[in-house]
């Protein structure tokens, strides 16, 4: 009954639950992505005692839970199973790739058993974290090994493995934002309409790729459905970072009491062929378009299409 009382505080309808053994990197990941903490500054971080919440756009909230250790009975207070309910709930389970696998897996399965009892379709995203010190080869081995073990046990225990996904992550690399984007995308309201709009924008303006980004966390909420080279994601993140650096210089020229909607347009030119165009949708969302120089040279057409798309997105995703 003790834990039921604790759930008195309502969780958001669209939510991501960050769980895993102590020290696997949950809080580090979230503070790097949401609070712009430098990865190195997480080294002295204290263990999480209290559940913490990070708000994102579109009402999505990410909850960081204290570490769970299956084998230590002391002070482990399992959360109320009701938190796993709902069509817009997603679980991220963070495992230290250099920690005790058996222990981590035992904890993972105890969570899955409870969760699937109330929500058999809950997406289960396993972040194999701290891969920064592993060689490329070792990374693949760890990935394979983990996947095999998880599937085997799930089959054996008759658990549903259809919604399980694996990600290799580290706080030292922007891939962590891509992994989070993939988790969060499924929770975005009207996601399929957004994708349709971006597809049509992409083809009408002959762009190579279009992303809808949450500018503060640099997590994308949607993108057009053309196949993407993973390099393009990384490049898109880097472009947004560079945009932040550059805009930082002019922060003093913004009026203090502005809503942040300043119709900003940013163009990055790369030698030869590539242009990136960032079009502001509202104070926290931007469209990032990648195209060839010729296409984006017809800037007025692009801006015209961009403004219409931005308007449609504002209607679909009210702030």
């Amino acid at each position, binding site marked *: 009954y003790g834990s039921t009382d604790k759930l008195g505080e309502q969780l958001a309808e669209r939510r991501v639950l960050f769980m895993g053994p102590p020290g696997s990197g949950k809080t580090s990941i979230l503070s790097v992505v949401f609070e712009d903490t430098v990865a190195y500054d997480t080294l002295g971080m204290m263990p999480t005692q209290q559940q913490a919440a990070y708000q994102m756009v579109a009402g999505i909230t990410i909850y960081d839970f204290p570490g769970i250790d299956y084998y230590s009975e002391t002070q482990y207070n399992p959360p109320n199973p009701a938190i796993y309910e709902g069509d817009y709930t997603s679980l991220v389970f963070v495992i230290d790739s250099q920690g005790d696998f058996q222990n981590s897996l035992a904890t993972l399965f105890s969570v899955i058993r409870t969760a699937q009892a109330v929500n058999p379709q809950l997406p289960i995203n396993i972040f194999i974290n701290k891969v920064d010190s592993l060689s490329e080869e070792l990374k693949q081995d760890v990935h394979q090994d983990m996947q095999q073990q998880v599937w085997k046990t799930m089959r054996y225990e008759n658990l549903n493995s259809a919604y399980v996904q694996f990600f290799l992550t580290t706080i030292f690399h922007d891939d962590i934002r891509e992994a989070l984007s993939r988790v969060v995308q499924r929770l975005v309201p009207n996601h399929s309409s957004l994708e349709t709009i971006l597809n049509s924008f992409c083809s009408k303006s002959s762009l190579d790729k279009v992303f809808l980004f949450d500018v503060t966390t640099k997590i994308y909420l949607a993108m057009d459905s053309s196949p993407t080279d993973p390099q393009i994601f990384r490049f898109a993140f880097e472009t947004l970072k560079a945009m932040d650096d550059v805009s930082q210089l002019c922060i003093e020229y913004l009026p203090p009491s502005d809503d942040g909607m300043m119709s900003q347009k940013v163009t990055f030119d*790369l030698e030869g062929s590539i242009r990136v165009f960032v079009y502001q949708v509202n104070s926290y969302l931007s469209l990032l378009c990648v195209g060839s120089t010729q296409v984006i040279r017809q800037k007025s057409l692009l801006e015209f299409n961009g403004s219409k798309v931005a308007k449609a997105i504002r209607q679909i995703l009210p702030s």
Partner: protein
Amino acid sequence: MNGLSISTKKKLVIMGRSGAGKTSMRWLIFSNYTANDTRRLGATIDVEHSMVNFMGDLNLNIWDCGGQHKYLDNYLNEQRENIFGNVEVLIYVFDLETTNKESEYQLYDDCLRNLAVFSPTAKVYCLVHKMDKIPEPEQKELTVESYRRALAKRSEMFQPDVFGTSIWDHTLYRAWSRIVYKLVPNMEIIERHLSNFRRLSDATEVVLFERETFLVVCYTAADADVPLDKYMHISQGIKSYRNACVHVQSRFQSVEVSNKFYSMFIEPFTKSTYILVITTDPEVEPAVTKANITAARPHFSDLAR
């Protein structure tokens, strides 16, 4: 403007114990290396020489002196004249995590003693490095201050400038911009012309960057109180973006930001520089600013070849 174009060669020596971070900073500033890449560096064998062209006229002859004992002994004995002769700038890198501060200072004293003999007019900079290992800003300040006091007492003849640095943030660019600023031969002329350009084009701020390193060469702002430090994040930001562009098989060229309140351009300018122009006057169309940049280009090309 004769005489300005005679190229100058200047010797710059980087000294410090092994593992202090000398080679890391050299790669970060003068090549397209990221901070992460430096973890793969091995100890430098003896002295690594490199020649870097800066702003067309200035050739920096960089001596990165490997800091292992066997080499240090050699520098201070047989090689002393070779190492410490004709030095324009000595950069001494202190690893703030050093376990033996006293022996570190002793080595530093030995270096300066030799410098006093062979290059008495050299300029000395001390970098207190790996500042990222100290989390709190106040503590950082205190640490640099304590080094500054200790070093001032030790090196009366050279009066070194002391900077706290880390390869993980803009502080490294800040220190190196200051170092290089003092070396560019015709800086006053460039500064004067840059501020004329700013007035003529109704811009609010104009900054000149060296093209390869993206170190700030000089700047001018309508508000005279703008500190040089303001631009250090950009040096670091553009450099890391340049690295990112490599992953899509391209090279960074320029960026343009415009919104209701300001417009900003960062563009290639002369053969050896990039220019940044910020305009806050809503009457000035971005296209006009762009045209002004183009018009000024040939003039500055003559100035800073």
